[in-house]
């Protein structure tokens, strides 16, 4: 009997049913590199992509596949592929779609590594990117050229927290038959499922909220299956004959899952950014509690935002759920459950004040990650961006008083008390 299970149920069950042989309720960790073939015929059928199955863990693995199928179910996608990190996912998508001479339109307000890949690395291979304001659909449309092969952005920008108007941008991409690829790490499918808003491909850093416990690095690509790759001139390596498997056309043979089939056959095979089965297991443990955690993340985020807004030592607070955020209306429309659990705020007293604050809090951890169950903080002005002048930081959308806060799941009163210790240190410094 088909049930069409809901999100919370899929978070726990999708991708796995108890093993018939052992009865294992949890997804087993298949810590193996390879799989015994029952016959040469079976081996050939796997190599030729005649049927699904596993032949080598660099390409696929049963534990990793359970994670992939869970992600596909949660996002409402046709298929998914998990890999070693979010950046690996990003590179796999770009390299699967683009070739020498192609062009990308991307948001100018993104995670530094995403910008580095597109601005510095890909041009060496002949793929150029124009960066535009993600809040300006007209600018995105104007930037699209005849050789543009994808539009890329982050649903919730890191670290600026800009919100992309996904339905508007999807309409533009759709009218020009260009796939809209979104980094949905900060929202997770719990807060927003991009395919419902017209996006075509989603990439995730599973390391963050999906995994949620800061114990395993991983990434994923989820393919909406809603993009027509049939234009052989525009997407020759997906719809035209590919060098692999005697000139296979991934589009003709795999339709909605063409992109994932191509990435598995080419990207995973040639580049090899596979996810370890043990990490896949850890990440799935996190996903089991994703709905519970995201509810609490959002509840705590709203509480700490109010606390910071009303605090005398705080100059400014930025979160898309606050009415003062420039993208608040877009956030309300596309992220009605909440706009994630990253809050940026500025402390009165500039760079030195930020440094004093961060060094005085005890419960919140000072580190370079987000999306952990524990509250995390970083002060870019004294750490990741300490080599930059105040002016240079401003150009990148950062200020030297800015603290990036990743709100955790603690009792929020304890975090507030902890922050008071930081503010006390700042007060002392300011005197």
């Amino acid at each position: 009997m088909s049930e069409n299970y809901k999100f919370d149920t899929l978070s726990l069950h999708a991708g796995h049913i108890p093993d018939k042989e052992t009865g294992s309720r949890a997804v087993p960790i298949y810590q193996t590199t390879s799989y015994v073939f029952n016959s040469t015929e079976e081996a050939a059928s796997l190599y030729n992509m005649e049927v699904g199955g596993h032949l080598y863990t660099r390409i696929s693995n049963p534990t990793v596949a359970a994670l992939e199928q869970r992600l596909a179910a949660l996002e409402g996608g046709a298929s998914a592929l998990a890999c070693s990190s979010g950046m690996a996912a990003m590179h796999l998508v770009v390299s699967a779609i683009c070739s020498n001479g192609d062009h990308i339109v991307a948001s100018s307000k993104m995670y530094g590594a995403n910008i580095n890949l597109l601005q510095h690395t890909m041009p060496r291979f002949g793929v150029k990117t124009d960066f535009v304001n993600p809040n300006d659909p007209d600018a995105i449309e104007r930037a699209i050229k005849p050789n543009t092969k994808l539009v890329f952005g982050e649903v919730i920008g890191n670290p600026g927290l800009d919100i992309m108007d996904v339905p508007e941008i999807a309409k533009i991409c759709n009218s020009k038959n260009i796939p809209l690829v979104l980094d949905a790490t900060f929202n997770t499918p719990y807060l927003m499922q991009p395919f419902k808003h017209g996006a075509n491909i989603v990439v995730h850093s599973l390391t963050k909220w999906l995994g949620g416990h800061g114990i395993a690095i991983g990434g994923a690509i989820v393919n909406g299956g809603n993009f027509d790759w049939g234009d052989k001139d525009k997407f020759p390596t997906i719809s035209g004959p590919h060098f692999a498997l005697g000139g296979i056309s991934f589009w003709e043979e795999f339709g909605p899952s063409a992109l994932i089939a191509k990435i598995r056959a080419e990207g995973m095979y040639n580049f090899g950014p596979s996810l370890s089965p043990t990490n896949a297991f850890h990440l799935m443990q996190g996903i089991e509690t994703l709905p519970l955690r995201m509810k609490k993340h959002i509840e705590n985020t709203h509480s700490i935002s109010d606390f910071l807004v009303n605090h005398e030592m705080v100059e400014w607070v930025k979160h898309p759920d606050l009415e003062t955020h420039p993208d608040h209306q877009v956030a309300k429309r596309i992220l009605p459950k909440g706009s994630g659990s990253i809050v940026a705020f500025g402390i009165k007293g500039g760079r030195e004040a930020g440094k004093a604050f961060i060094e005085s809090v005890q419960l919140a951890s000072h580190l370079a990650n987000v999306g952990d169950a524990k509250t995390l903080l970083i002060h870019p002005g004294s750490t990741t961006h300490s080599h930059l002048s105040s002016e240079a930081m401003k150009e990148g959308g950062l200020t030297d008083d800015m603290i990036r806060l990743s709100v955790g799941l603690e009792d929020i009163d304890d975090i507030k008390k902890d922050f008071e210790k930081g503010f006390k240190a700042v007060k002392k410094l300011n005197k």
Partner: protein
Amino acid sequence: MIITFKGAKTYIGTGGKSLVNTKRTLCFLHGSGQNHLSFIQQARFFAYKGYSVIVPDMPAHGFSDGNPCKSIKENAEWINDLLVELNLKEVVVIGHSQGCLVALELNRIFKSFLKSVIFVAGSNKIPVNQFLLDLSKDNPQKASKMMVTWGHGIDGDLSINKWPGHSHYGEGNNIMCMNKPTALKHDLNSCNDYLDGIDASKKIEVPTLAVLAKNDQMTPLKSGLKFVELLKNCETHILDCGHFLPSERPMELNSIINSFLLKLE
């Protein structure tokens, strides 16, 4: 491959190998609202086994243009004409769901072609409830989604798939969305209106194979078992899954079909 047939662009999947019309050809016929992609894991499998394989997208389905056929008979005539056009000499037809009704009719009218018929999740009649008929006309996307949900067994609900990373629902919905919007309405009405199944079943003289599904909600097992009683000398298998046997149990299905084909040699 793409050909122009009856004045319309027509796509025919060949499993990644060239069609050799002098060899025995396996002709896969897709179900209502489906296209060649419902046989992803059969087309390449049998093509690489050395069979000549064709998986046509019926008019207005998948990559094919043209107007959808409006009855099972019209579907059968279209297939018959295609087999003539391709100059195929010896054909084993493998139908899934609606494709089984088309295969029955094809045998009834044009039996000289057929060396065998294989029925997957089939019956001699496929009545469709009025709600789904109406929905396929008013909101084919919603109707497709409901069919994908009803059609799959527990593996669909829980995204259990032998093909790593693939989702039955996500893939199934998008496969159906590739068709022209009017295709589903005509398919479902064709099934509902087809009343010659008993006669057509009794007329089959060639060896037959039926693979039925235990948890089939589209062509229920009970109906499938009555159907096979009408067939002379039919080899029958029942698999533990839903209606979408080709993607839910690809290896088991391929193995059963392969053994049957070897017996035909």
